Each structure stands twice: as C-alpha cells, then as structure tokens.
C-alpha cells in the first residue's frame, strides 16, 4: 500500500493529474484542501472567476449553503460553476456542497438556487438542529473496510432521486433509509464531512475513481 500511495503522489508531482480547486467562498475549505493534499493532489483554494475557470475538478466544502450561494451569485460565479459541472467537470460536495450540487432543494431559503449536477432533491437540515448532529460508522460502496467514521452536522439528506443517481450509502431513521452519499457520473456528494476527520478515503475515491476516470 505505501508504495502505491507513493506512486500516486509521484505522478501528481510530475504534473500528470488534474488541477483541483476547493471553492473558498465560505466554510471549511482549508480542511478539504488539507485532505486533498494529503492524497497527493494538485489542489488550491479558488474564489475568483479566473481561479475557478482554471480548475479541472472542484470540491465544494461544508458551510452554510445559503451564504455560499449568495456569494457565488453576487460575484457572478453561479453560471460559470453551473456550466463547468454540466460540461463534465469532476465535482465533489460535502454537506452544504451536497445541497449545492443537487438539482433541487425541497425547502430552500427564499430565492436560494443551486449549481446542480445530480438529478436529486435534497432536504436541508434533514436530521434536525445542531443538538441532533451525530457521528456514525458508515459502510460506503466503493470504499473497503473498515467503515468510515461519518460526521453529520445539521446535515441534509437526499429526499428523492432519479434512477440515474447511484446511492453509495444510506442512514436509517425511524425505519426509513435516507441516501447520504450519492454519485451521478462525475459528480459525488456526501451529507457528512470526511474533511474534518483524518480519514482521506473519500477524497482518494473522488480523485482516483471519479476525477482521473473522466
């Protein structure tokens, strides 16, 4: 395993990999950057039109989805990011990022829109308020054992989705299963925050199984 990781890092150092941007408008973008860099990715924070135009993959961090949306709209980044995702840019969103890559929000704040990318409807703050935020060990399709220690903070879940969306993990609440990790083509989304743990397997999955595949 260590040899394999070294090889990935080496390839990246040689410039064979994608330029990954972490959308740095608001939220825990530094944690995502650290996770990506620990995987050996060529990653940087991006917050201007020019910076975002130059990236080949994008990570949308956890944070407040209404705030990130408003900043993106006010600084004319909304259409740019929408178009790049539509054109197939590998994109990963966690928590607020999941909301922003959903085509629809069930309960948007007034006027709130998304970048879109996954044909699904999400429910914001679906698990409840902060006192209901939780950690759980989660098995995720495509990630080998042990389970991922998943941290859910005022997290959304997927309320409904098209058959084209692949469910990678779900959480059961009162006997009902709610998808919390999904993928459609080059876009990945999780309700939880791998970036605030030291486990980089989700980022590795994004880089190796999604970004490098496109």
């Amino acid at each position, binding site marked *: 395993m260590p040899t394999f990781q070294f090889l990935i890092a080496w390839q990246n150092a040689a410039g064979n990999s994608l330029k990954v941007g972490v959308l*740095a408008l608001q939220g825990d973008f530094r944690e995502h950057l650290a996770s990506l860099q620990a995987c050996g990715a060529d990653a940087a924070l991006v917050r201007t039109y020019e910076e975002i135009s130059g990236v080949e993959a994008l990570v949308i961090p956890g944070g*407040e989805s*209404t705030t990130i949306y408003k900043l993106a709209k006010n600084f004319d980044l909304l259409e740019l990011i929408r178009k790049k995702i539509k054109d197939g840019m590998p994109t990963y969103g966690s928590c607020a990022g999941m909301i922003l890559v959903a085509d629809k929000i069930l309960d948007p704040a007034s006027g709130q829109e998304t970048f879109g990318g996954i044909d699904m409807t999400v429910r914001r703050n679906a698990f409840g308020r*902060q*006192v209901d935020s939780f950690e759980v060990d989660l098995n995720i399709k495509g990630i080998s054992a042990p389970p991922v220690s998943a941290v859910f903070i005022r997290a959304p879940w997927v309320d409904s989705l098209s058959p084209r969306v692949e469910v990678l993990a779900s959480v059961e609440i009162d006997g009902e299963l709610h998808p919390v990790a999904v993928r459609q083509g080059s876009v990945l989304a999780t309700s939880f925050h791998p970036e605030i743990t030291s486990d980089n397997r989700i980022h590795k999955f994004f880089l190796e199984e999604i970004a490098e595949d496109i």
Partner: protein
Amino acid sequence: MSQDHNKTTGTGRVKRGMAEMLKGGVIMDVVNVEQAKIAEDAGAVAVMALERVPADIRAQGGVARMSDPDMIEKIQAAVSIPVMAKVRIGHFVEAQILESLGVDYIDESEVLTPADFENHISKWDFTVPFVCGATNLGEALRRINEGAAMIRSKGEAGTGDVSNATTHMRKISQEIRRLTSMREDELYVAAKELQAPYELVKEVAQTGKLPVVLFTAGGIATPADAAMMMQLGADGVFVGSGIFKSGNPAARAAACVKAVTYYTDAKVLADVSRGLGEAMVGINVADIPVPHRLAERGW
C-alpha cells in the same frame, strides 16, 4: 449499505465541527424576525437572537439576561440558518433552557450580566456546543478546558470601536506564536503563567493554533473592520450592534459578508464599502470607565 446505526450526538467532533462550518462567515446579532430575515438574505452564516443589542444594553443599563424563549423560537421558525443565543456567564440553568429550545450554539457571554463571579458553565455536560469570549490565550484555553467548542475574541461590545478587538486578536496570536518557539521543558512554566492546563498549552505549542475555531467580536462596524480581523487571523466575525444600529442594515450586512470572503482583495473591499450610509455612531472605548467595560467580565 443499510446497517445497524450507533449514532452518537454531542461529541467533541460534532460540536467543534459545527464551528468549522461557520468559518469565513459573519454571525449577526438580531432582536426580531424581521432583522433575522435581513441577516439571512444578506448571507449571514448564523444569527444571534437577543432582546437588546450590546449598544442598547450599554445605554439602558440594568441586568441583562437570557432572551425570552418565545422570541428565540420565532426566529428559529423564520430562518433556516443556525440560531445562536446568549446566556449569562455561569448561568447553567439558562443554558439548560436554551438547549431544550434546540438553539444551535450557546454564547456564554460577557455582554449579559454575569451570574457567577468565579465559575463559568461546565460546558462538557451539554449536547449543544458553546462559544465563549477571551481577551488572551490563557482565558481562551480555560474556556476550552471547560468545554467551549469555539472561541471569539471579546473586543468591546456595543461600541463600534474596533481597537479592543484588534488588541485581543493580536494578543492571542502573539501568545500562540510565543508558545511555538519555546523548548518543550519551558511549557510547564508557560502553562503556569497562562493559568491554563498544561495539556492544552502543549497542544497549542505543537500545532501553532487553538484546538477550536477562533472568531472575532466586539466593536466591528464596517466591512474594513471585518476584513482587518480576518487578516489578523480570525476564522470569521460576529457583528453585533454594528449592523442594525447603522443607516442601511441590509446593505451593510451584505457588505460585511463579502468583505469576510474577499478579505485580502482591496478592490472588492473598496467596492463593498461604497454608499453604505451612516455607520453606527459608536463610543470610544477609552471614554468608558474600566468598571463598565464588558471585556473585563470573565475570569
């Protein structure tokens, strides 16, 4: 993929993680539903629900306490962003009440009249996370030792004078930098001098930062104030009286949000500073007699 779920709430990671999600954002004081909606529309990452903003507490005097639960619940119902509320220092029953309301974060705040002049709340006992004020590193680490999941530098609330916020931010980062330059065998004395637990002092010395998110508060009145705090190393800002005591709250609120994201871009800062109308009038901290300075509260 369905499985037996052993969900755990109220963990350190969940509480501190909540603050991570607020980073790069502005948390705004609001006293009613209308203000809360203006704050949400402007892009605030959270609102602080309270009955009187610090400037009014200062002007009107009297004992300042936790807000009416009715008022907090109305604001919770009106916005989808996190809602925070304040309790008096040491008043653990006010905290129990706010937790039962499902408030997202509790601010154990020097802006209210202290309920205990020796002890702060033992914050580990709660599922809801707490933010506490600090004027220096020792105070910040004492609060973290009691379970605070987020720290804000205190500044001097309700003044519109940013000088104390500057002093406290500089002080905290200077003291952190000093620890990182010390030999390991010097950290015992450093802990004694900071009046903080050795384990936390050692952690800060190794990582070069607080173990929790650090916001700035107290006296921030303009987008430039907010950006300056970010350049001084704050993870985000609280704006209290500065927004709704100004001429055009909606515009000023939106401008502060933009300034905190593009805090190093002077062109954006110039743009967002244009035409905001009158800033809050303000009081110079130097004109306030020491016993009336809120930052002196907390120990």
